[in-house]
């Protein structure tokens, strides 16, 4: 299964760190996480209930006709808001897409799953 960036159409690099897998686009900095990966990530987070990433899985879509297509099944992804985070979620439950800007924004407030993700992506503390 070749996972392709839903924005740039280039194939994503796959980063694995301590058994967490994130597919990252070199060009736009966006990241794709399979549902199974996201669950593995959340299982390491300290306070899963308040976690914006966790809430994004159950949040209702505010834009149900996303222009971004799921890299796994090509379904139009729905855009959800969790806190001040906006992510694209596959309606079939395959995973979530965070584009570069959203990812930076998320990693600037490292709590819960985001702090684990920050460690996986090697971004410690605030980055510009």
């Amino acid at each position, binding site marked *: *299964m070749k996972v392709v960036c839903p924005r740039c159409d280039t194939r994503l690099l796959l980063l694995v*760190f301590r058994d967490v897998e994130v597919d990252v686009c070199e060009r736009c900095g966006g990241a794709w996480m399979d*549902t199974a990966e996201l669950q593995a990530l959340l299982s390491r987070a300290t306070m899963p209930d308040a976690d914006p990433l966790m809430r994004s899985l159950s949040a209702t879509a505010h834009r149900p006709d996303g222009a971004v297509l799921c890299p796994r*099944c090509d379904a139009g992804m729905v855009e959800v808001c969790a806190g001040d985070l906006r992510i694209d979620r*596959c309606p079939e*439950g*395959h995973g979530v897409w965070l584009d570069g800007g959203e990812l930076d924004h998320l990693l600037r407030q490292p709590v819960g799953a985001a702090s684990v993700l920050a460690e*996986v992506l*090697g971004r410690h503390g605030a980055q510009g």
Partner: protein
Amino acid sequence: MWEQIRSNRWRSNVLVAAMAAVLASLGYVAGEWALGGGGGPVGLLFGLAVLGVQLAVYATAGEAIVLRSAGARPLAREDSPRLWNVVEEMAIAAGLPRPPRVYLIDDPAPNAFAVGRRPEEAAIAVTTGLMIRLNRDELQGVVGHEVAHIGNRDVQFMTLAAVLLGSVVILSDVLWRSMRYGGRSWRRSRSRDGTGHAIVAVAALVLAVLAPLLVRILYFATSRRREYLADASAAQFTRYPEGLASALEKIAQAPARPVAANAVTASMFIVNPLQAGDRGLFATHPPTSERIRILRGMAGAGLADYEAAYRRLRGGRVIGPRSLASAGALRIRPPSEEGPVATRAQVREIVHRLGDYRTIRCPCGATVSVPQPYEREEVRCIRCGAVHRVVRG
């Protein structure tokens, strides 16, 4: 299962005959509409030609097409000796002439299906999700179920039906289009030889609506009983009904539906990924909960035990008398201690090998997998920024 093999042969013939009738009449009507009066025979020939092409495709590349449309890639023995071992065990238990080839689908949802026109050239495809989530007993149950489909010639009938179903859908599409955008208007057809053309028009309408529906009903209604039979055989081959029962439970509870499922391949999976409701004419599979209940109601692992559990829970009969007579009594074996045949990391490695990735281990502790072909000679580690050379494969 003698009765099942015979009935599959018979069904395949009936299906081809029914399809020929449907396609010929569809073609005839489409021809009358699209080409005007007298165009019927041309359309009829076209309809039969479509069937001929479909049968030729089926005969030469049936399983290759199904496997490709599901995104399956061949898995070598050295990739996963333990999975191969399970497949071979089950093939021997089922008395197949040779073990089926093994394919892997990179998909987190656990599922599996089998394809093949003859037992000698069959293949079993499993998803990565299945390999990771199921322990050995459960995997054996699923593989046993698929191997039973191969032995009973179910997969032959399914592959044929899948190919034929596609052709009817294409033709009724053509018919609809010609009725809406081309052909002759109602008024003209009524003014000349009115009744005949009106009949054709009504027939066209009926066919266009009913043909795909009829084919589907035929195709689906015949496929439910064989799921029970394959479950019964799997219990017999593994001598451990609980393995398949808990595998079905895990598969049914999985969140995402397989990426590879489409209208044609859906009914081939062990649990139909596109089946929303559990009952009705279009259900290709019996309700999973019912399949689990019957397996768990078995007193032993023999066919007679399955028949007894089936009769108690659903009523009626499922296994043919000849098969029951030739099957011996079997006791349920104790469960094995073995976990999944592969860890997540191992499956990931296999997928990357099959999917043409070059994996680079960075001193910072991360591994970066680079898709091939890669346009540059160097890649930066996403995590620490260290530059690595990408060896071209």
